[in-house]
């Protein structure tokens, strides 16, 4: 091989290829581990989110630090299992404290979280600085736990990670129904005899385990985001719990892949922040683009509604003009319409074009005319408007102007069955409070005749 080639460092592209070819088996392990972590943390974090304890992951992660340090101090080892157990115990004590403080003192829930978080973390840092001053081996890299460093994980670390995360996922699947019931309706769960406290404890244990096992990968400070953000993002995609949990775990997995990749390409960078950034990006994308609940969808729906309202308003105005002419004259100029209904003329023109396209009106030199289909629709709208005015007049203490204003809006969303219900409840369904005749429902009359 050419000596020249050996000296050139591999390019980013080559590194990226190397990553995906899994030439370094360690990479594969880390990738699997972080995907499992992403999935389990987002699923169990989803439950915390539902219980309105979104930031408990934050406090528990910080609370784990003294346990890690104590385990090292007492046993002089970096054995993953020992460290894990130390962190677990310490985090669990934190969990207990978060619960105990608001129940037994004036201190409120949010302060309890902040106190636990900062106190335990300070304790951990105090121990860390003490350890760093000691003359012991093996102590370097303990500080990697602050921000996470995938590259620093050993095979033992990753094996433990895999076991714990699989355990968490399996437990959630097994007890899913019970967890769901407790999350949504705790009092009911108690009344049917469910051992709520035991399941609460199990849930707490799972959260603590997920937090502790992820510390090496993501770090103490940002663990909260791994638990919280996937579920928050998933809520924009679905309302049903099983779906949101699956979507959350998917998002967790995707962000794990992205951040592991980046961490491989730039080993000096901590893994945690990249996982958070990718999760947040996925969150923002969900917020904006999710079908149905995303902001963009809501905005476009709103726009469509505005168009529909404008169209229907014009139809009704045409009907009114027709009425005034006693149904003789059926051509009206734009100016006539404009006189009756105040709408910016640009909007009026575009709405008229839309109505033409939908074959509800036709346009000619003499003006705009309602087609048969258009006439039926306009009559239906007018009927609903006037029936509603009657309803408000009879049942509510409203003046005729107030009644008209309300009906102007409700006419667009009244359905056929609601219309029938109205007619049943009204004493007068022939004319509205202003004295105008209520058009018949010609279609239902025809249908009645056919039967």
């Amino acid at each position, binding site marked *: 091989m050419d000596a020249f080639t050996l000296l050139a460092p591999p390019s980013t592209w080559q590194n990226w290829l190397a990553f995906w070819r899994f030439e370094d088996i360690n990479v594969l392990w880390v990738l699997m581990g972080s995907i499992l972590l992403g999935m389990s943390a987002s699923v169990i974090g989803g439950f915390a989110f539902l219980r309105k304890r*979104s930031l408990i992951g*934050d406090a528990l992660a910080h609370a784990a630090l003294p346990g890690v340090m104590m385990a090292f101090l007492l046993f002089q080892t970096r054995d993953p299992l020992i460290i894990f157990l130390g962190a677990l115990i310490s985090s669990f004590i934190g969990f207990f404290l978060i619960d105990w403080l608001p129940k037994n003192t004036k201190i409120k829930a*949010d*302060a309890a*979280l*902040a106190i636990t*978080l900062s106190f335990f973390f300070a304790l951990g*840092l105090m121990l860390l600085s003490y350890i760093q001053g000691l003359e012991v081996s093996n102590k370097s890299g303990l500080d990697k736990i602050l921000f996470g460093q995938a590259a620093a994980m050993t095979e033992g670390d990753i094996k433990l990670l895999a076991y714990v995360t699989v355990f968490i996922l399996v437990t959630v699947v097994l007890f899913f129904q019970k967890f769901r019931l407790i999350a949504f309706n705790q009092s009911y769960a108690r009344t049917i005899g469910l051992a709520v406290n035991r399941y609460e404890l199990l849930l707490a244990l799972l959260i603590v385990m997920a937090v502790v096992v992820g510390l090496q990968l993501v770090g103490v400070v940002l663990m909260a*985001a791994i638990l919280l953000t996937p579920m928050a993002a998933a809520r924009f995609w679905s309302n049903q719990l099983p779906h949101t949990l699956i979507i959350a775990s998917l998002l967790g997995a995707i962000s794990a892949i992205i951040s592991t990749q980046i961490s491989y390409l730039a080993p000096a960078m901590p893994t945690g922040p990249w996982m958070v950034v990718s999760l*947040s990006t996925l969150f923002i994308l969900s917020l904006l683009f999710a079908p149905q609940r995303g902001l963009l969808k809501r905005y476009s729906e709103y726009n469509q509604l505005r168009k529909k309202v404008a169209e229907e308003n014009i139809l009704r105005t045409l009907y009114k003009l027709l009425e005034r002419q006693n149904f003789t004259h059926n051509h009206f100029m734009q100016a006539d319409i404009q006189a009756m209904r105040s709408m910016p003329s640009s909007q009026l023109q575009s709405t008229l074009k839309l109505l033409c396209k939908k074959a509800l009106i036709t346009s000619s030199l003499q003006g705009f005319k309602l087609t048969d289909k258009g006439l039926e629709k306009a009559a239906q709208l007018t009927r609903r408007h006037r029936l509603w005015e009657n309803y408000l007049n009879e049942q509510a203490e409203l003046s005729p102007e107030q009644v008209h204003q309300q009906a102007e809006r409700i006419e667009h969303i009244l359905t056929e069955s609601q219309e029938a219900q109205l007619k049943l409840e009204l004493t007068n369904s022939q004319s509205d409070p202003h004295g105008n005749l209520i058009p018949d429902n010609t279609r239902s009359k025809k249908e009645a005749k056919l039967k």
Partner: protein
Amino acid sequence: MINDIWILATASLVAAACALVGVFLILRRQALMGDAISHSVLLGIVLAYLITDSRALPIMLGGAVIIGLLTAWLSDSLHRVGKLQSDASIGIVFTLFFAIGVILVSLYTGQIDLDQECVLYGEIAFVPFDTIYIGGLEDGIEIGPRAFWAIAIVFTIVLITIILSFNRLQTVAFHPNLALSLGINIVFWHYLLMTLVSITTVASFDAVGAILVVALLVIPASSAYLIAKSLKTMLWIAVAYSQVAVIIGYSLSYALDSSISASIAVSAGLLLFITILILEIQKRRRHRLISQSEAA
């Protein structure tokens, strides 16, 4: 010796300023927002430095305030528009900001003299060595460390604000609806408090770092909450607790050769737990006395 004095003086001011601001966070149940802002200001500092290439104090304070207010505002907007619970909204915003801050720090480590760990827990022991000279390096008068003056200025601002607007702050904290019905602009006072949190956090950064700022914001004030009978005494007691924590913490760190700021935070926590313990004992003793007198 002189260095010790600077360290203690800086630590005392940091603890006192945090205690004062923390009282209002506790009373308004906004401890988590305090946690959030103290993490987010990292991004503010980094961006301010990257954009202006200066570590001047007003620039850092400015960057911190902007990001601090942005954090508060974004969290609130996410809550309203995204229909997300308020603690979830806070969590998403500040973790993102903090993550971006850490990434920027590790990308530009050469240029910014913060490194990741310093960010988190600072190192107050180095404070005396970063001094300010008035009138140039050669013949100027050394007036003390930069961090000290930063927190001294912020402490003064916080103190004056609280003294001047004491009644307003009390009304807004105790009964926001009453304040609203009296025509007080509670939105303004909310963001004013967030501004105080931001500047206190960033001025404390050099000395104690992000996480420990949270401890000093929340723990002495919580201890005071347990025993104070008026807002004024709560403020005094919180500052008192913070000062005792500084003294104990400093001694502890000396004895154990550990981080000074972490030890101060731990001491604050120990004081809180001792207070809780004493209150519990008093409560039980009272109950025993009552049941004894009933039995008699």
